[in-house]
């Protein structure tokens, strides 16, 4: 029991979930991905890349 209490004490304090109200435009703004983020899965669109498959310099 003591060990459990010690473990509980070392855990971060519980935080209540937060809800952030967002309107339509805020949702559309938040749920976007850049070409670079898409390309992180590999070379999503290699024809656009020069230098190396996904390098843009």
């Amino acid at each position, binding site marked *: 029991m003591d060990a459990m209490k010690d473990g509980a004490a070392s855990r971060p304090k519980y935080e209540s979930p937060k809800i952030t109200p967002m309107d*339509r435009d805020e949702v559309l*703004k938040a749920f976007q991905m*850049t070409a*670079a983020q898409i390309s992180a899965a*590999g070379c999503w669109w290699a*024809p656009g890349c020069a230098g*190396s498959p996904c390098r*843009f310099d």
Partner: protein
Amino acid sequence: MRLIGPDDVKIVRGVVLRRDPARETCFTVVQLHKDLHDYADMSDVSRRQRLHRHMHNEMQTMEIAAQNVADFPDAPWELRMQMARQCWDESRHTQILYRRLRELGGRKGEFPVMNYEWGVTQLLDSLAARLAVQNRTFEAGEMDLLRRQEGMWNDAGDPTTAALMDALLADEVQHVRYANRWLKELARQNPRILLQVAAGVQCLRRVTAGLAPRHDEVNAVGVNLTAFTHGDVVANIEDRRLAEFTQDEIAEILRQEGFGALVSGAADGAAATAAAR
């Protein structure tokens, strides 16, 4: 639309994706980017591979738009018309790139192909999610890249292919714009649509993370897939505006690309433009 069942999907590196569409026997279909033949230069074979891959991407996009028309017969008629027009555009793009590929001595099936966009978008069971992922994300990213491609082909001494990129870009702007308009309109009518948009983009984020190349993974032609960064990609501001992304949305993309300090006033379009230039 018909429910997606276990027989409709495949698993690649633990990631669930939609099974591949039918392909002619001349094509070799692979499942990971490392199995593609992406070269690190602009040699003759690399140019043909780039055109071949681009041609196949346009084919996929046509199939995705066509599948939307088939899967969502109750969508508003004008939206269905836009998707049908997109099929026509993408089929024309495929033909244009195939013709150029042959002019450079290439052939259909010369390189392996991968149905990445299809695999992701066809997991999504709502039209809003598909438009958010395919048109508003993949094709918006393509707008950013096509503008670069034009300069890249010019720099490589091929103004003919560079001009093709510019022509294709004009159509892609329209594809992104109609999705932006319709997603806003559909969300105005029914705010729950926004949950579908969020679910679609979250799905793409999961797939992207799951399929990221492993450290020092080398592709089929010896190129190290993790020995470079993607940080230099910049948004094509001018065309994103034409596609009716709001200034706030463009500022957010720029912030994600590392221009946050320059666009701290999120709605400051002038700052966003300056960052992109």
